[in-house]
């Protein structure tokens, strides 16, 4: 029995052991918490940058295909860009046939359609290339019309085609202008109106996108990239000399500035938490403005 008593812990020993253990546990817990916070902050920072790159990448891709001089840009402000967004490019594979004074059937080769999707009767308007006098580029033009129907068909050589019924306004010459001026092999470019703008929802800011049908019905704006910092998108417009563009049709390049912030707040010091923030800037030249 005396031996057993000697092997036990005294109260002091127990208190010291518990105290020491608690201190070690506190230090370890704090280290783990700090580690988790640092990792979370790093991940959030990475997410912000990924978002910014994706946002600038998308903006650059749509801006490149614009032709501001021929009215592809409808609205251009510091936080809003409304434009004709190119969706597909097709090649006429059979001579156009007039179906009425304003409607012309234009088969495009299915295996030579470029773009994010094929033609849509509900969504698309279309530009039709008119060569005019083949000896000069001066009279080359694009006729604008609307795609009213898309049917499966065959090209003159038997390959599959998408037969577009295209409505050309009489003011632009109607179907006669197409039949007379559009040659086999001419390109068609399908487009629909799209808007990119800053959207505030749920207390956060987003780069939002909405698109319009051919009839003009707009979709509800949906967040595309974000969250952004308050007022986190700035667009600036420049003409071909690099000066600020005076009018929409003068725009030759667009500078894009996105300021992103993290989804969650991260601890930035012992007492404060805030969103992780970063920004990305890019300047994109419009590739489809008229040239000589």
């Amino acid at each position, binding site marked *: 029995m005396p031996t057993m008593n000697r092997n036990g812990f005294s109260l002091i020993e127990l208190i010291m052991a518990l105290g020491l253990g608690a201190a*070690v546990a506190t230090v370890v817990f704090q280290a783990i918490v700090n580690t988790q916070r640092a990792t979370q902050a*790093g991940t959030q920072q990475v997410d912000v940058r990924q978002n910014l790159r994706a946002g600038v990448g998308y903006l650059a891709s749509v801006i490149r295909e614009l032709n501001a001089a*021929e009215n592809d840009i409808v609205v251009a402000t510091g936080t809003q860009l409304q434009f004709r967004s190119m969706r597909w490019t097709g*090649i006429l594979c059979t001579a156009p046939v007039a179906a009425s004074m304003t409607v012309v059937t234009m088969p495009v080769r299915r295996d030579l359609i470029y773009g994010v999707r094929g033609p849509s009767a509900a969504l698309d308007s279309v530009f039709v290339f008119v060569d005019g006098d*083949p000896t*000069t*580029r001066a009279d080359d033009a694009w006729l604008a019309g609307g795609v009213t129907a898309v049917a499966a068909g065959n090209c003159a050589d038997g390959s599959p085609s998408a037969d577009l019924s295209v409505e050309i306004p009489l003011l632009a010459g109607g179907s006669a202008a197409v039949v007379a001026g559009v040659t086999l092999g*001419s390109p068609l470019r399908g487009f629909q109106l799209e808007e990119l703008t800053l959207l505030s929802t749920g207390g956060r800011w987003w780069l939002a996108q909405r698109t319009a049908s051919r009839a003009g019905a707009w979709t509800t704006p949906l967040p595309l990239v974000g969250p952004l910092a308050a007022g986190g998108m700035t667009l600036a417009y420049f003409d071909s000399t690099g000066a600020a563009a005076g009018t929409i049709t003068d725009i030759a390049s667009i500078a894009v500035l996105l300021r992103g912030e993290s989804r969650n707040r991260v601890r930035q010091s012992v007492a404060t938490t805030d969103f992780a923030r970063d920004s990305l800037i890019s300047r994109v030249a419009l590739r489809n403005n008229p040239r000589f």
Partner: protein
Amino acid sequence: MTKYFKNERGMVLLVAIIGLVVTGTVITGFVVSGVMERRDANSTRRSAQAFAVAEHGLSETVGNWEPGIYNMLAVDSSVAVNGSPAGGSGSYAGTVTRLNNELFVVDITGQDAGSRTQQSIGALVRLRTIDMDVQAALTTQGTTKIGGNAKVDGTNTDPTAWMNCHPDTNMSGIRLPPGELHGQGSCAGPSYSCIAGSPPVSEDATIDSTTFFQYGDMDWDALVLMRNKLVTPGTHTGIGPDIQGGACILATEDNWGDPLAPASACGGYFPIMYVEGNLSISGGYGQGILLVDGNLSVQGGFEFFGIVVTRGVLKTTGTGGHFNGAVMAANVDLDDNSILGDALVQYSSCAVARVLTNAAPGAMLRSRGWLYSY
């Protein structure tokens, strides 16, 4: 004491393990976020690199348009293009596809240096037709002697064996400033029986250097820059097509296409030949646009289909030469043109249009010619 030390070793182990776990977690956390950032940044860099390479390929293909290859394509057929920018930043490959007589689509896919990312873009290209002011079989600017058995005819005539020529109006036989035509022998004025056309002779006081050296938006120097062939000044005999193994050998200096066999390998080859000096041709045949920065002397029955522009004078002798298309002799030194011997200058709208189209460089459509081709 032994038991005490055992307990202490236990705590050390526990603390060490916890320390390692914490340290490992810290390091892992930072490594994970670092790797994520690096991957995303690399992906963006590769994507930008692939896009830049694709744009380089597109610019190179359109900017260095090869009429001898692309303009010879049949409608709906393609030819492959590829290359890589200097510095090893990637490579591009794609196709040039002919859509109709004037239009092409160039489809280029660029790859980053590690071939891990691709970007596809394209261009709608239109031939920049050279706009020459052809209003007669022969247009000159100075004294022009015509005689012997020579004939100048502005009646539109399609070259033999050429397909898909369209009917067109007749032109003047000779267009020149007033008082500069001197018919000789049976071709003496005022009837000039060796000259035909509508009218046979068109005296035009407005003829000046722009008539010969300005071609729409292009001038002589621009046209010279577009040459496919630099022909050595001096005498050339036996000009004709060079076909080896079924392929038209474009590099051969005296291969000026094959107008007599349009379906042959050289039948669609319409080069722009430039001679920096005087040129004397004896025999043979060719087609295209012949630019002579000097005098042109032709004999031996040489046959040419297309357009000849000479800064100096045109002289034909003996069996002379047969020109099918149009000849413009600016004789800037005001020496005499002499169309003698058995020479024939025959206007051909088809020959003129075809060489102008086939020699034309490509350029992106004036607007909306750039596209994503995915």
